[in-house]
C-alpha cells in the first residue's frame, strides 16, 4: 500500500539525494579543478569519516570509547573490518552490561 503524499515525499528525498550524489561529480568535471582542489580531494575521505566519528565519541561515554578502541585495534591487527565491527560492538555491549 502506498499513500500519495508518502510517495511524493519519498520521491522528493530520492531526487534530493541523487542530486548530491551526481551533482558534485558533474560540477567537478565541468569546472576542471586546479591542482590545489585535486590535492584537497585526496584528504576529503579520511577527514569525512573523522567528522562522523569525533562528535559521536565526544558525546559518548565509556561504552563508545572502549568500543571504538577495540574496533581500531582489531582492524589494525586482523585487517578485517567485519571482525573489527563485531569486536567493537561486543566490547561496547560488555561495558554496557557491566554498568
Amino acid at each position, binding site marked *: 500500500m*502506498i499513500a500519495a*503524499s*508518502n*510517495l*511524493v*515525499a*519519498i*520521491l*522528493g*528525498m*530520492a531526487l*534530493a*539525494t*541523487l*542530486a*548530491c*550524489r*551526481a*551533482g*558534485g*561529480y*558533474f*560540477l*567537478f*568535471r565541468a569546472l576542471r*579543478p586546479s591542482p*590545489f*582542489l585535486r*590535492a584537497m*580531494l*585526496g*584528504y*576529503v*575521505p*579520511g*577527514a*569525512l*569519516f*573523522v*567528522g*562522523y*566519528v*569525533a562528535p*559521536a565519541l*565526544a*558525546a559518548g561515554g565509556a561504552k563508545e570509547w572502549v*568500543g*571504538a578502541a577495540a*574496533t*581500531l585495534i582489531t582492524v*589494525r591487527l586482523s585487517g578485517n*573490518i567485519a571482525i*573489527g*565491527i563485531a569486536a*567493537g*560492538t561486543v566490547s*561496547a*555491549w560488555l*561495558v*554496557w552490561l557491566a554498568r
Partner: protein
Amino acid sequence: MNAPTFTAAGLARGARRSLAVAAGLAPFGLVVGVLAAGKGLSLTETGLMSGLVFAGASQILALDLWTHPAPVLAVSFAAFAVNLRMALMGPALAPWLERLSGWRLWGNLFLLVDHGFALAIAEGRKGERDGGFLFGAGFALWCAWLACSLAGHLLGTTLHPPRGHPLFFAALAAFVSLLVPLWRGRQDALPWLAAAAVALPVAHFAPHGAWHVVAAALAGGLVGAFGERRRGAP
C-alpha cells in the same frame, strides 16, 4: 596505465569486500525499518524509501520529521542537508568515474554510499581502478540495506531496543573501522586533527543534518592541500 574499466571479476571482488562492512549497516537498517513502521509507513513504502534514497542517516532524520500527510519539503530538504557530503565523494572518485559512461556511470553514482566509498578509496590507493569493484560494493550494500530495513519494519512491532542500546554502536564501529584503511601515514595527522576540531563545534551548534561531516571534510581537505603546497609536493 591500462587497468580494466569495468569487469565482472571486479564486481564480485567489490561485493565480497563490502559484505564485511554490511555488518555495520545492519543495525542502522533495522532502526530505519522500526522507525518507519512506528510512523505508519507500509512495508512497500519502507522498501521504496530504502531502495530509492539508500542513505541511512537522512532516512532516520526524515522519519523523525514524518507526519500525515508527509511533509514533502521538509523531508526533501533533510535528505539534501544530510547527503550534501556525497557531493564531495563523487569528485574524490573521479579517477574511477571518468572512465565510465551510461548505466555504469549512473549506476555507480546512484549506489554511492559512505561504506562503499571508503572501501573504493582504500583499494584505489593499492591500484584498484575497476569500476565494477565500486559497483559491486555499492550493489551488495544496497541489497543488505534493503533487506535490513524490511526486516526492521517486520520486527517493528516486536523489537524495541532502547535508544542507547549497544547494538546501535555497530553503526559507529563501522565508521571507526573504515578509518584504519583510510589512514595513509603522518601526512594525514594534521588534516584529521583539523577535521575533528571543526566537527565538534559544528555538531554542537547544528545538531540536525550532517553539517559537521561536510565541515570536517572541507577543513581536513584544506589543511591537507595547504600542507602539500607548503612542502612543495606536486
